[in-house]
């Protein structure tokens, strides 16, 4: 029997507000443990939460970017459970009246597009961090745990998709698109390694052509796109084997071990979850008036689709270029900054897509870490357009700029790369080349004009590649026709 994977994602996004969700402690990754805490985020007796306005605005931005419906009223609940990283013994979260519901996000792969439904988007708070002491660094076998409350109370948005995803590749593409959207919205740094973007996946299989959902497992904490895709593939394979052997999938939480590539069940808690949700009496309801929603909508930054369209209509770029450039907000911002200093959109696009992205890809580097600034690129392009260096030389210079961080001017000067366009200087070289190669001169004059390439090559060799090819061509034709 053929099986179809059914995947739903639960994504947690830490918002990059200045202060925490319910208190004024700074939001920041890491740092000396327990230096960004207060009575509220340490849950001291008597301390009370007060909501961060910016977090709610960011939440609304996310909801709108995912085409969600925002009900007029949402409330907060207490989700009760004990864990050392949860100081109050409950998490303030949203339950049956979330901030936003019923959205979607369209994903385009090369060969398919899909509209992934968003079930809900809600606000909650992050937990503290457990540091497991002992040999392994993992929970199992640790002698004790250390708790750092710096992260406690960081605004956290949960996004839950409908089970509309049917392949690991699509899951990855969704997460990628979501991340890009969130970066465009400027609501989170989405750093998966630091945990500001976290993804859990619910996976089940069902016979192709059926509608009923199979028994699902939950794959926890995929901390990179690659692991998400690989872990899902692995879990789908595991379930497929079970089903094909006539066995049953057990509903449980599983762990994907990145090193071994193995899936293993997490030891389940002794009792079933009974979170005893009830309305948080320390907070009052959130009412998203039409006016508020409109204000947020007006303040929304340009999203990828809009930017893509603008690149085509305003800059006259091909759709393909527009898609590649806007696939990441960082790249698009880079492109536009360079374009502000060098007014040939297609040329900038070619260089960003061809040279810059290729370099980052090969080097495995993030754009934020790239040593060539948009201004640096623009400067280089000016040198090429002015004829100081050839396009090919320009590419070499760019590569060196990436490696060394030096400017185009510095590299060109240091390596003496400036083109020779001076006719008198070139005349001398050309005269010598003609004199040294009488046979080829004969051939040319006999009508074999292609030989001119040979002469150009010789001139380049003599000048160390610095001769301006356009000028050389012209002079050669003139001299050979004499």
């Amino acid at each position, binding site marked *: 029997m053929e099986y179809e994977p059914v995947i739903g994602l639960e994504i947690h996004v830490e918002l990059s507000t200045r202060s925490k969700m319910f208190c004024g402690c*700074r939001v920041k990754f890491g740092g000396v443990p327990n230096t960004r805490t207060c009575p509220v985020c340490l849950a001291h007796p008597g301390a009370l939460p007060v909501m961060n*306005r*910016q977090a709610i605005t960011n939440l609304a931005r996310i909801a709108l970017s995912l085409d969600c419906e925002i009900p007029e009223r949402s409330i907060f609940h207490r989700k009760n459970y004990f864990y050392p990283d949860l100081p109050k013994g409950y998490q303030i979260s949203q339950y049956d009246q979330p901030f936003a519901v019923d959205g979607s996000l369209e994903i385009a792969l090369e060969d398919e597009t899909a509209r992934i439904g968003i079930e809900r988007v809600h606000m909650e708070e992050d937990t503290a961090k457990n540091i497991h002491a002992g040999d392994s660094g993992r*929970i199992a076998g640790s002698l*004790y745990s*250390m*708790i*750092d409350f710096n992260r406690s109370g960081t605004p956290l948005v949960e996004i839950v998709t409908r089970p509309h995803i049917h392949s690991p590749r699509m899951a990855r593409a969704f997460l990628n698109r979501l991340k890009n959207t969130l970066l465009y919205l400027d609501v989170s740094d989405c750093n998966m390694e630091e945990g500001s973007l976290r993804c859990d996946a619910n996976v089940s299989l069902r016979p192709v052509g059926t509608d009923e959902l199979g028994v699902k497992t939950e794959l926890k904490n995929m901390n990179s796109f690659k692991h998400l895709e690989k872990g899902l593939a692995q879990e789908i394979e595991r379930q497929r084997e079970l089903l094909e052997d006539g066995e049953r999938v057990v509903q449980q939480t599983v762990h994907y071990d990145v090193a071994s590539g193995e899936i293993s069940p997490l030891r389940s808690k002794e009792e079933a979850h009974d979170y005893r949700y009830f309305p948080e009496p320390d907070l*009052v*309801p959130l009412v998203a008036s039409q006016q508020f929603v409109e204000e947020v909508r007006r303040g929304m930054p340009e999203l990828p689709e809009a930017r893509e369209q603008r690149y085509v209509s305003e800059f006259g770029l091909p759709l393909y270029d527009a898609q590649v450039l806007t696939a990441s907000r960082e790249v698009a911002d880079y492109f536009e900054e360079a374009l502000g200093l060098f007014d040939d959109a297609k040329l900038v696009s070619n260089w960003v897509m061809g040279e810059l992205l290729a370099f980052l890809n090969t080097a495995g580097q993030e754009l934020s870490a790239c040593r060539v600034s948009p201004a640096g690129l623009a400067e280089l392009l000016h040198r090429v357009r002015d004829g100081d260096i050839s396009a090919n030389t320009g590419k070499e210079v760019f590569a060196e700029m990436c490696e060394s961080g030096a400017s185009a001017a510095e590299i060109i000067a240091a390596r003496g790369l400036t083109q020779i366009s001076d006719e008198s200087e070139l005349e001398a070289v050309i005269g010598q080349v003609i004199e040294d190669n009488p046979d080829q001169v004969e051939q040319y004059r006999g009508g074999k004009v292609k030989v001119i390439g040979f002469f150009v090559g010789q001139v380049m060799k003599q000048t160390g590649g610095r001769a301006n090819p356009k000028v050389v061509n012209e002079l050669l034709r003139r001299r050979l026709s004499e």
Partner: protein
Amino acid sequence: MVDHEDVRYVARLARLRLEPHELDRYAEQLSSILKHINKISELDLEGTEPMSHVLDLTNVLREDEVHDSLDSEEALANGPDVEDGAFRVPPIIGE
């Protein structure tokens, strides 16, 4: 109406450890309290709105401003077991 099983389950959820002899006492006391409390089930409250708050307040928000945090010494001062600037707890098992 509340039996040992219920008492055990609830105590476990609330992270309270009860001695065997306490199970009887709690089962008995909770039953008698619940018997009285069950009076509210006589009421037919179909259509009555539940009230979680007497105040008619909405949207109480603070500006996104950073305030001074406690210094770590103060944050840790009441900690029963503190080491290297962090709160220490026995090993976490079962998750």
